[in-house]
């Protein structure tokens, strides 16, 4: 019995959300008196992977076959299932993401494993294995028992308070059997904004809505985000109108975020918008309408014009550095 964490790589480094999953996994291992192995797939290097030790991992299995350099859902699922076999893992931990959802699902079908997603806290072992998960798009929680021998747990951001230690992890090559049918899906092009803070992983998010009046006004939103080191997000009508790219749209039908700080600028706070952001730790609302429903969900509020307030906040942050 052991704990296996599936870590996603971004440009060869373990993604921040996966470091949180590694720490989560190591806490599960501690509670169960066992060890934590990390599986990393794709281009990387030993130094970048050994970082996992600081987050509680004992060992990293690295599948570096060149065929795995682009993330193939089926191939990654086969590699992960093989690593579960090699480590006799009972717990498979990962961070929720579009790749993570797909891979964890296929792996749990391969292993007939219990799968629970959007987990927000460490498991409770007092009576079997139960976890607390977010449901109804952040509007409620459920306590769920995992009844199969193997258990797949996909965590939501901020599920655990990460404490970085000074442990080290050994890195071992992992050479799984790869099957041609696992590469039947061809990625023919990738379009990715570079050099930006990734929204689902961001600790700080500056989000703006229709109150910004048009895409030409986004400079004040980006300036504030840059000053904070925050990711930018938007409401649904803003992405529907093509003012901003679709991958910035948060809410019920968009990305769900749970950052430490969510600053909403010129967003009314419709229930479908709140659904995607309500698990943020601190919410700031800037809106010129004192009756905007978003204020009811906020920790801090400013009734004011975004065109006046945002540049002043940007200046204040720059001045405080």
């Amino acid at each position: 019995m052991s704990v296996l964490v599936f870590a996603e790589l971004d440009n060869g480094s373990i993604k921040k959300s996966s470091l949180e999953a590694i720490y989560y996994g190591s806490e599960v291992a501690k509670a169960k008196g066992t060890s934590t192995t990390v599986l990393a797939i794709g281009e990387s290097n030993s130094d970048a992977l050994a970082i996992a030790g600081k987050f509680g991992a004992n060992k990293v299995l690295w599948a570096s076959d060149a065929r795995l350099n682009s993330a193939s859902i089926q191939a990654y699922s086969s590699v992960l299932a093989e690593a579960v076999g090699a480590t006799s893992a009972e717990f498979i931990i990962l961070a929720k993401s579009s790749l993570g959802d797909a891979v964890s699902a296929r792996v749990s079908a391969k292993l007939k494993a219990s799968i629970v997603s959007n987990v927000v806290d460490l498991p409770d072992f007092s009576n079997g294995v139960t976890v607390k998960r977010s449901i109804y798009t952040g509007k409620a929680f459920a306590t769920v028992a995992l009844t199969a021998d193997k258990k797949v747990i996909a965590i939501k951001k901020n599920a655990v308070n990460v404490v970085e230690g000074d442990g080290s992890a050994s890195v071992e090559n992992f050479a799984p059997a790869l099957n041609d049918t696992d590469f039947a899906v061809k990625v023919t092009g990738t379009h990715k904004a570079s050099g930006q803070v990734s929204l689902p992983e961001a600790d700080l998010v500056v989000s703006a809505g229709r109150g910004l009046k048009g895409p030409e006004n986004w400079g004040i939103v980006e300036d504030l985000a840059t000053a904070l080191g925050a990711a930018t997000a938007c409401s649904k009508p803003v992405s529907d109108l093509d003012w901003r790219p679709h991958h910035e749209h948060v809410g019920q039908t968009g990305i769900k975020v749970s950052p430490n700080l969510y600053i909403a600028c010129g967003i009314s706070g419709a229930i479908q918008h709140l659904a995607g952001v309500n698990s943020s730790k601190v919410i700031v609302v800037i809106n010129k309408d004192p009756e905007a429903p978003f204020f009811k969900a906020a920790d801090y509020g400013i009734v004011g014009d975004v065109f006046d307030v945002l540049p002043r906040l940007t200046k204040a942050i720059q001045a405080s550095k």
Partner: protein
Amino acid sequence: MKILVCITNVPDTTAKISFTDGDTKFNKTGVQYICGPYDDYALSRAVELKEQHGGTVTVLNVGEAESEQVIRKCLAIGADDAIRVNTEPTDSYFVAEQIAHIASQENYDLILMGRESIDFNSGVVHGLVGEMLGIPSLSPVMKLEIDGGVAKMTREIEGGKEDIEASLPLVLGCQEPIAEWKIPNMRGIMSARTKPLKVVEPVGVGLTITEKYALPAPKGAVKMIPAEEAEKLIDLLKNEAKVL
């Protein structure tokens, strides 16, 4: 082309969420149910593909009798027939088993569903079904064209999107802007009444048990900062909320 569209029967996005029976059951009182908004996109695209390429669209719901209103609406939008697996959809694995069981009895070219349900938001059923059937699964798909036996798709990834090609059959989790939501017209509503809706019993068992529900702790009162003193916010975020 044969398309299977899997739909969820879920509380409306504005529904007030509460629980009964000592927080062990969802409180359905006064709650309006809808077809999951992502499933609606999947269904709309399926109907468009049928218009372009011919074929059939079958709607599948794992749910109890109360789902039938939503199923009829899907038939009114343009699906040809429907199957309901008569059971409460309690666990992702269990739901996927039902879909895979139904799908394995016919040769569907495409199995479409929403990227996630809006009640449990797991986003894993498409992957489970794909693996159970031994075919590729992709999600969230925001563009889908069929050219011969090949699907050309765009999938959203963190911070962008990727273009993908794969041969049919496929299982896809869909999201906007794959299609425009469709509203049933009068003719659709009339014809939906007589379209076949088959009810079958479930197979297999789930691998998780939901024991209890809870609502989040109520938010404390909002602290208002006068616009003239907006700069104070930065100090509060640093020293009071400690998030900067």
